[in-house]
């Protein structure tokens, strides 16, 4: 380094046109997620679970179900994504979401890279927005990937057949497919809420493991409160209940009331969590790392 002459600096760009934006942060956050192993851990789980379910159905002897759509699993492959939505609400989808949401700020703190990016030309809110959008993108992809793999695996196993609704009517296969994807979209509401809680814990704890586990524990806590006999009155207002809101789509006619309730109940948890995360990130000292 000492031996060579210092290279002449490149010409100064007048006025620094094209300042970085939220989109700039978002692109690079997605790029970083593509290069992180934990991204593939979550997405891998999303893909592998439908396959495991399809294999399990293949070797299942009982034709009876003890939960919604279980008895339809052998009749229509389109029942599989819906069954996975039921099972995944307990811990799988919250975990998949938390893997990235809990890590996205905390890992930067832990590695000390937060101070590196904060000393560039970006406002803190831009970094927050870009990261939040990237984590949301990951969660949406994980859910849609899971649903798509479940549809494909279920169809291979049980065929692309009409589905019986929860009201006992038969829904054509193509219509049922539309309902499955609409259910996935509605499922994204509680997922987004888990995401916001993950982001809050990520900014608050500055510890990736604590934020991921903490998010999962909060999710499980809602489940626990929902099954405790004395607290069942709280059920409509619990996050865990909103994971079932999509079932309204599978009624004839469609029952929108649980879906509407999910909108405001999820907002009740998500907005304060995201707001708190935003304010913490905006105002906090960045040291260590």
């Amino acid at each position: 380094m000492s031996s060579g002459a210092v290279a002449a600096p490149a010409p100064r760009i007048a006025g620094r046109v094209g300042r970085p934006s939220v989109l700039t942060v978002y692109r690079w956050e997605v790029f970083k997620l593509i290069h992180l192993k934990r991204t593939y851990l979550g997405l891998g789980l999303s893909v592998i679970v439908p396959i495991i379910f399809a294999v399990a159905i293949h070797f299942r002897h009982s034709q009876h179900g003890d939960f919604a759509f279980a008895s339809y699993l052998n009749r229509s492959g389109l029942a599989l994504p819906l069954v996975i939505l039921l099972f995944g609400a307990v811990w799988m989808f919250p975990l998949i979401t938390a893997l990235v949401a809990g890590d996205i700020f905390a890992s930067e703190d832990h590695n000390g890279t937060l101070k590196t990016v904060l000393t560039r030309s970006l406002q803190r809110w831009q970094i927050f927005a870009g990261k939040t959008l990237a984590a949301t993108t990951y969660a949406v992809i994980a859910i849609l990937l899971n649903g798509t793999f479940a549809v494909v695996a279920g169809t291979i196993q049980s065929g692309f057949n009409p589905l019986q609704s929860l009201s006992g009517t038969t829904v054509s296969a193509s219509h049922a497919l539309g309902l499955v994807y609409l259910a996935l979209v509605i499922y994204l509401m509680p997922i987004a809420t888990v995401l916001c809680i993950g982001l809050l814990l990520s900014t608050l704890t500055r510890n990736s493991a604590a934020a991921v586990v903490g998010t999962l524990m909060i999710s499980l806590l809602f489940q626990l409160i929902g099954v405790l006999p004395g607290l069942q009155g709280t059920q409509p207002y619990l996050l865990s209940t909103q994971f079932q809101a999509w079932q309204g789509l599978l009624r004839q006619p469609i029952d929108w009331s649980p879906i509407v309730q999910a909108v405001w109940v999820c907002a009740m948890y998500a907005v304060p969590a995201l707001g708190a995360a935003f304010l913490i990130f905006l105002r906090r000292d960045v040291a260590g790392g």
Partner: protein
Amino acid sequence: MSATTAPPLEVRGLVKRYGNLAAVDGVDLTVDAGDVYGYLGPNGAGKTTSLRMMLGLIRPTAGTVSLFGRDPWETARALDGVAGFVEAPTFYPYLSGRRNLELLAAFDGDGASALIDSALQTVELTDRARDKVGGYSHGMRQRLGIAAALLRQPKLLLLDEPTTGLDPGGMRDMRVLVRQLAQQGITIMLSSHLLAEVEEVCNRVAIVQSGKIVYEGEISALKRSAGAAYTLQTTDDERALGICRAQRGIEEARPSDGKIWFSAEEEEAVAALSQALVEGGALIRALTPQTARLEDLFFSLTEGAGNGAEDAAADGAERESIQAQAEATR
């Protein structure tokens, strides 16, 4: 003061408290354009905390930081023309050196990406640019940190202990690089606990102890303030000592390690003493000016009355520990 005429860095009454501990306690300093400014102090003196506030990473408890007239907590634009790192520069270990620079260039805005090649060339990392940073040595990361700073075309460079952890060759190279950047017109402020480093590359210095500035100004002025000292050897030192003590303009004279040590503010007094010694029959064998060393001045400023080096080190370590705990829990 307008942004164009404001000094690159101006700090007034800067305070950072962690509970009862004042990590930085009323720091005032000004770094003028063209300075290579040393922020010198023992470990735990508050240097890194100060730099974090200067870069807008932590919020001051009191006081102001102004970068070319703008407050880094009010707008990220205050960092336009400013670059640097606190503690060791940090990067994404799973990305290559070049990818890291591309990311940071994107976060700097258009134009910065065009500087990546020249920045890599400057720090001589072109050959390793495609390797993942996770495999870089500490010295390579330090150099990549400088490259990342150069992408911002800085007019002010803030470097926190840039040679810490480097081997002697790496330290020498880093100092050469700092001097070369200064020659290009970049104002540089570097924190250090290494006296020789500051003495070698800086023209001005702030000496900080327990969060407070104990000296701010030019190194040469600091040395001058210590007065000029000389050692003398003659053919008859006993007689020479008497002549020294009697001579006007000689402030203090005493035997020291087989020589005579004396101090004088004016060089004319030394010339007159030479003549008096010859006339008095004590012929001069050697008359050597003693340059005040920054190290001596540093310890005289930072150790204070009755506070020895070990006490100062223990105090610094304790402060460092409290600061680290406070920062970890915030």
